[in-house]
């Protein structure tokens, strides 16, 4: 009795090893690329990074020094306003889809949300340009509207997911107590979904803060000082990194690396935290 297999089996085993090996290598490669990207940005960006860099105004053209304070303020304003627009609308859409919509209507709206999600962000940039910038000066509002269109499908999806996790028994419990639909939704369903909606929003913020294309035609020509008025063009991190990366000056590259590091740290920290919280919420709720 020979249970070690014949030559053919040996060949099949080699093929199996090769396939398993390739899959493992592919996974390693992805991790490696991530490591290299993060490492090269950290290495090149850390040198430039200082308190002054974070708090000073943008450098004068061709001059050394300067900082990115206006970019931080501008990006915060842009994303803050975008969140204020996208969050309520997204929650309403999600409530409609999960609580009210008939299958047919629901499918149509779901399709539109998915299409919005797949829309190239440069299209959103062009749309916002045509709607709010063409014929006017550049302004922060237009940029925020663009970012809110990026965020809308993401927050809608996240909200839908948590709404689905709210146990039916809770809803039925509330309805059985004689509570009306709107009281149930506002008083029971949404509060128990709030945590999930928040983490979904944080993930969308992490995505929006790095989006460049929607801002490119809306708020890319700005001054070098802090700007608080969204009626004017707002300096912002992604567009400035883009501009510096296209420059030929080594100082600009250094600034680009340092700004990219700031942006990357913010994005990675927020999205990783949100993901961890989300994983825990999912495990707790279902």
């Amino acid at each position: 009795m020979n249970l070690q297999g014949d030559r053919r089996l040996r060949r099949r085993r080699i093929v199996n090893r090769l396939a398993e090996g390739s899959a493992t290598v592919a996974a390693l490669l992805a991790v490696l690329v991530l490591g290299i990207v993060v490492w090269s940005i950290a290495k090149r960006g850390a040198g430039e990074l200082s308190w002054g860099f974070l708090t000073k105004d943008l450098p004068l053209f061709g001059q050394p020094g300067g900082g990115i304070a206006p970019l931080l303020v501008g990006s915060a304003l842009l994303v803050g306003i975008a969140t204020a627009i996208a969050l309520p609308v997204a929650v309403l859409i999600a409530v409609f889809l999960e609580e009210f919509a008939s299958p047919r209507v629901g499918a149509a709206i779901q399709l539109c949300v998915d299409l919005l999600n797949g829309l190239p962000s440069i299209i959103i940039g062009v749309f916002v340009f045509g709607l709010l910038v063409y014929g006017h000066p550049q302004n922060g509002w237009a940029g925020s509207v663009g970012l809110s269109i990026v965020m809308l499908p993401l927050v809608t999806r996240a909200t839908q997911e948590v709404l689905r996790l709210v146990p039916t028994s809770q809803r039925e419990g509330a309805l059985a107590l004689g509570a009306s639909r709107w009281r149930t939704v506002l008083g029971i369903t949404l509060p128990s979904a709030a945590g999930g909606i928040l983490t979904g929003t944080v993930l969308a913020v992490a995505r929006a803060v790095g989006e460049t294309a929607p801002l490119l035609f809306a708020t890319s020509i700005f001054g070098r000082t802090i700007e608080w008025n969204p009626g004017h063009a707002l300096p912002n991190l992604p567009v400035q990194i883009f501009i510096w990366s296209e420059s030929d000056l080594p100082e600009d590259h250094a600034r680009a690396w340092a700004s990219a590091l700031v942006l990357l740290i913010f994005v990675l920290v927020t999205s990783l935290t949100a993901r961890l919280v989300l994983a825990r919420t999912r495990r707790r709720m279902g």
Partner: protein
Amino acid sequence: MSAVPMTQELRGGRRLRDRFGDRLLLIVTSAAGLGAVVLIGFIAYKVIRGAHLALSTFGLPFVWHTAWDTNKNVFGAAPGLYGTAVTSLIALLIATPLALGIALFLSELAPRSLRLVVGSLVETLAAIPSVVLGLWGILVLGPFLADHVEPWLHNSFGFLPIFSGTPQSSGIFVAGVILAIMVVPIVASVCRELFLSVPPELEEGALALGATRWEMVRGVVLSSSRPGIGAAVILGLGRALGEAIAVTQVIGAGWFIRSSLFAPGDTLASRIAGQYQGAVSKLQIASLFYLAAILLVIGLLTNLLAQIVVKRFAFQRTGGS
């Protein structure tokens, strides 16, 4: 004590308020839902409306004309279409096998503890802002490819026109590689979900017949996920087609069609993004809108296709034979 006041209260104010509240909630939420539909339509309308002047001046031939001459005010989309197609193709050729490998590793091979770590690292790759990846692409990846990969391709396969020409640190090839990095996490995460949804009984059934793990994967996991893999790749394609910023940074901006992949070029999206500092004429702006309209149509069709494939696949799996 007496039921009368309570009944009256039930029928009275509270009920009215509840009915009003229910009605209001329904109206507000359905308006928002309708808003999503209107928004898509409005975006399409605005973009096509913006292209009006170019549409009336150039008509459909704009799509296959190659010029982009601001002096003569003549514009065409062909080089951008070519660049979009070629960079996306390179991206998918690199990304698809890698993503399938990653998905198989995460769903079939890796021990439980590694799955979570490696899975979230791959997702983190997708979270890197494209402008940051583009910066890395132009200053690190581009020079690396130009020094090490492109010369090798040129020396080994230089007889092919696509690998002729001198290696450069920015161009179509570099753009394709950067896009591949952006597409991999998307395709990998969709495929992982697909593979995880293959019933374990099927996998056991194959193994019990004396198949090796790879034979099981090929015969059961891959073959029963084929349409889903197709949809995942199409979703990745949608991402690659539309990416503007990172491509603009690494593609080198050139409105022409060259056979060499090392040469600079442009995609529809990168040409639009590259013109952010302002256009000379109204016709040029309208032409940018025209490019955007073409991209919009391609993007919507791609996404629709992916949706249809997914729907039909879900139907197949749930027992429609």
